[in-house]
């Protein structure tokens, strides 16, 4: 499922080349070219660019003062805190999992490996609404652990732990999915050499494996972070929408929007849109760096 989100090593290199336009055989007539280009760019502008611009225009429709007060509202600030908290817990959890899974899968042979990879991918193919539902079935009042949790005065659903769980689920495969193919491609000779020379497991990982996979790891981390901070459906199911307590930023956007406070809703939304733009910026930078590292490696070998 994640095929479309994995780090593209050739990307930065391929963009900006003109080998196809230089030859008659791989060139369209100007009319066809402009038709394709025009259609593609119009489609891009209508479906991707305009929604992005609309967020910022709507956010500033009532001026900077309304904008600032929407962001500095205590409910918005507490939503921001919860969003940061959920991401700050989900990210390290999935990072440790991703590294462990990639180490086991890429460096060792065992039966059922492909099946395990498919299982790790599973959360990508599950609707976010179902991602929330499954934790309600386990931890909710009528769920498996519901009575036990109530007895011990613990709350998971309609509370912060539920939001963290839902966030972990929807971002579950990102880091593992980046690391597994990268570490498989690296092989294990370098690590074996390190171990034979006396390095322990952690030293081997830190000094040998990590430098080889750092761009993929970083890539997985920023994708995880973006999704963790932006998740709506799964979190909506388990949150209970208690203002100031179990509201994340995306849920706060929904509440404001449903109360017809459009400018405030778009102001908070613009914060999330900025996060998306920063994520895409870092992502492009990583692709650029990774492509160069990749190229240097190949030139060094030949």
């Amino acid at each position: 499922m994640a095929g479309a989100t994995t780090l593209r090593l050739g990307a930065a290199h391929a963009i900006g080349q003109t080998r196809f336009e230089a030859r008659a055989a791989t060139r369209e007539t100007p009319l066809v070219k402009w038709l394709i280009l025009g259609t593609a760019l119009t489609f891009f502008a209508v479906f991707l660019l305009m929604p992005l611009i609309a967020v910022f225009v709507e956010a500033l429709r009532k001026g900077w003062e309304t904008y600032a007060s929407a962001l500095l509202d205590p409910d918005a600030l507490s939503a921001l805190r919860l969003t940061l908290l959920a991401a700050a817990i989900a990210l390290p959890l999935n990072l440790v999992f991703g590294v462990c899974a990639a180490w086991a899968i890429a460096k060792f042979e065992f039966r059922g490996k492909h099946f395990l990879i498919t299982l790790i991918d599973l959360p990508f193919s599950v609707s976010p609404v179902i991602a929330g539902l499954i934790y309600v079935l386990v931890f909710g009042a009528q769920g498996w652990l519901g009575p036990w949790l109530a007895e011990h005065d613990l709350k998971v659903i309609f509370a912060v732990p539920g939001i963290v769980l839902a966030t972990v689920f929807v971002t579950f495969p990102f880091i593992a999915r980046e690391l597994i193919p990268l570490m498989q491609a690296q092989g294990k000779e370098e690590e074996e050499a390190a171990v034979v020379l006396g390095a322990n497991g952690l030293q081997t990982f830190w000094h040998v494996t990590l430098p080889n996979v750092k761009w993929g790891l970083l890539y997985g981390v920023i994708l995880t972070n973006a999704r963790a901070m932006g998740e709506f459906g799964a979190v909506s199911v388990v949150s209970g929408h208690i203002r100031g307590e179990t509201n994340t930023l995306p849920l706060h956007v929904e509440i404001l929007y449903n109360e017809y406070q459009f400018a405030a809703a778009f102001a908070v939304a613009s914060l999330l849109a900025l996060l998306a733009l920063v994520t895409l910026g870092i992502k492009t930078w990583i692709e650029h760096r990774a492509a160069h590292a990749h190229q240097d490696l190949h030139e060094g070998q030949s």
Partner: protein
Amino acid sequence: MNTATLATPLPRPSAPPRLRVLPGFRLTLGYTLAYLSLLVLIPLAAVFLKTAELSFAEFRDIVTAPRVVASYKLSFGMSLLAAAINAVFGLMLAWALVRYSFPGKKLIDALVDLPFALPTAVAGIALTALYAKNGWIGQFLEPLGIQVAFKPLGVLVALVFIGLPFVVRTVQPILEDLDTELEEASASLGAQRWQAFRHVIMPILFPALLTGFALAFARAVGEYGSVIFIAGNIPMVSEITPLMIITKLEQYDYTGATAIATVMLALSFALLLLINGLQAWTSKRTGRDR
């Protein structure tokens, strides 16, 4: 004599027991399996176990209720249509990004991933603002009698938005890897440009295009956040299946919600298998590693 003795192969040591030089196999695999089971597999199993409490007749009545069936038709119909639209325009966009040079190309290439990065709720309210009667796009469609926001067409627009990168990003690397020699050969053999596209490029591209289509479809069927703002959520008309689950949950009808979730999960798993198969086909056809 001597040479003969020399030629006698040395006794081969029996195959050494498979040694694992690297440490940490048990620890990392154990942790992986435990984490996966606790957070994903056991909670997902809860859906099936909860559904198993129902008799078959009860299950059938819930998942074939008219309002639920209307939601399947809308969700599947619009997801298929959105994936098809993305397959066509996504291919064009990937083609333009790989083959043509134009100003702002790098920026556009980076922004193609926007639907991955932009929170779905933000996309939902932005699209609603654009396609409302007085919105930037809606105001031009209104005189033509086309209403998008709060109508089934709104669902389609949202699903096209979130599905686009899946097609572009699966087709783009295959296009980049394409050898110019193939097209030069077909041109030298007298093929027209469209013949080269139809008979040379398309067969190589097709598995990837189909994979992108399936990925976009799978994502669209489960999508919730970007759709509910623009759909209007009118029963029997513009309610998507994930919303039916939410509606049942809000009425504390956990069994009903879980039964519908079972239908959706079964479809998701079928799609996952199909997509795995398609990706294997893509790598076989193009010789690329996934």
